[in-house]
């Protein structure tokens, strides 16, 4: 298909989105990520039964926590799609990058620069 998606995305492969921990998400923001999203299998299609549901819960927790600390919960999202949906993957990537670009850089990153 030769689809393209924004180069600013760094893909971190995990065996299942159930492996994604809230700490992974928080550390990404601490290290300066502007946004994080998890792409899991379709609900009901998890090979490990509930990995994608667990991931969604953790994403929700991360959203709440990031809102509290002032980074903004809208910088984290969870998407569900099948592995055959390449065009949708590219579309989600493009839309998410656009959303984060509109939000601007991670405020932590800006303040870290100030502190340095």
């Amino acid at each position, binding site marked *: 298909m030769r689809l393209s998606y924004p180069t600013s995305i760094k893909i971190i492969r995990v065996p299942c989105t159930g492996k994604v921990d809230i*700490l992974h998400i*928080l550390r990404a923001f*601490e290290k300066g990520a502007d946004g994080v999203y998890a792409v899991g299998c379709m609900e009901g299609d998890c090979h490990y039964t509930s990995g994608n549901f667990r991931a969604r819960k953790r994403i929700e927790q991360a959203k709440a*926590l*990031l809102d*509290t*600390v*002032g980074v903004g919960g809208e910088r984290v999202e969870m998407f569900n799609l099948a592995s055959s949906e390449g065009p949708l993957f590219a579309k989600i990537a493009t839309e998410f990058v656009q959303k984060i670009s509109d939000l601007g850089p991670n405020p*932590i990153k800006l*303040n870290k620069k100030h502190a340095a």
Partner: protein
Amino acid sequence: MIVADKKPIEEIIEELGTHEKILILGCNECVTVCEAGGKKEVGILASALRMYFLNQKRDVKIDEETLQRQCDHEYLEEIRDRVDRYDAIVSLACGVGVQFAAEKYFSTPVYPGVNTCFMGATEERGLWTERCQGCGQCILARTGGICPVSRCAKRVLNGPCGGSTDGKCEINKEIICAWQLIIERLKALDRLDDYEALSPLKDWSTDRAGGPRKVVREDVQP
């Protein structure tokens, strides 16, 4: 085990005020099992606080450490050589750990990072329920292994009160009447005679009524 619940991060931030060097101190025992104050929760709180303070343009150093226990001298001693580097400790241990740390490191403020709730069991992941109030005079032998002190709202000792309806407590229809459970269990054990026996007046002086308690065991003392 001792069951604790997470404290809202806003409350912890408020407690911390203007401190600039903070140690987040977890505990590997009960609070790890109830997912409120173990190594992972220490990591999450530390990360959140770092982001919060950076966002406030404040240069606050937040370190993480998790001890095996905070209710024993030998484990708390492990941080003695570096405790002076911090001007505050947030302890994610139960209230016992927080107080023991505060007693040991007298000049360092120690703040609680969790709300300590009760002694209970893990019914399932994410659901903990109370089982013991530490009354100091265990009566489980004659109540079929079900405790009316911790599981009955009125702590009655001779059968259910008048508020027990369809096996549920009058304070909340979701709470099972402890005495219903006791009778069912005694029936299953074919020991309903135990139910007929009157409980003597309970000596509550070994409960909180007698003030702060202590256990002295000369046989194991050095």
